[in-house]
């Protein structure tokens, strides 16, 4: 699965995207796995209320299932316009 990071999430983790092999059933479970990897992930995912998630390029919630998903993206609240 492709995992993408944007804005300060990308800066904290230090890369814009990576391939992740996971059996996580939900976004929240994936976040737990990532947090456990290294401090920079723990720092990026410290406060989930400050984060948003998109699954296959659709905004969703952290309890969204990951079965069949190709792409998950994490980022702060958007500031377009």
């Amino acid at each position, binding site marked *: 699965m492709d995992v993408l990071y944007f804005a300060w999430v*990308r800066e904290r983790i230090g890369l814009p995207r990576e391939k992740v092999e996971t059996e996580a059933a939900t976004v929240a479970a994936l976040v737990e796995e990532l947090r456990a990897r290294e401090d920079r992930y723990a720092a990026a995912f410290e406060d989930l209320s400050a984060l948003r998630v998109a699954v296959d390029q659709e905004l969703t919630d952290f309890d969204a299932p990951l079965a069949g998903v190709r792409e998950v993206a994490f980022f*702060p609240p958007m500031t377009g316009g």
Partner: protein
Amino acid sequence: MRVVVQEAPFDFGAEAAGFAAGRHDMGAVVTFTGIVRDLQGGGLEAMEIEHYPGMTEKALEKIAKEAVERWALGDVLVIHRHGRMEPGEQIMMVATAAPHRKDAFEAAEFLMDYLKSRAPFWKKEFSAESRAWVAARDEDEDALRRW
């Protein structure tokens, strides 16, 4: 309906003049333009806008389609830039055409409210002293609730 995501500047005057041109059934056109605003007291060197290629286009098209379904519109245009911009540069525009002004105004405000908080763009401000991601404003999230 036209949705454009690009790094290059766009020609606001030409886009505005060309939008809905030649239509005889639209009485009202509303445009909104977002411009890079300097910091209070000045000093902003540049704004950089990051986006999520692929999702950005989908999100903007979804928002535009929803506007067309909810209001009596003849046409909708959304242009949004990404990359580096200086103070005074145009970041984005929306335009709406409708038989009546109420629909044109409401749809333009709806598009802006959704685009602010639901399209995957992130702004970073660069000055001599600092570089900082622009924080989302609670009032922008609140603005969505009226629709």
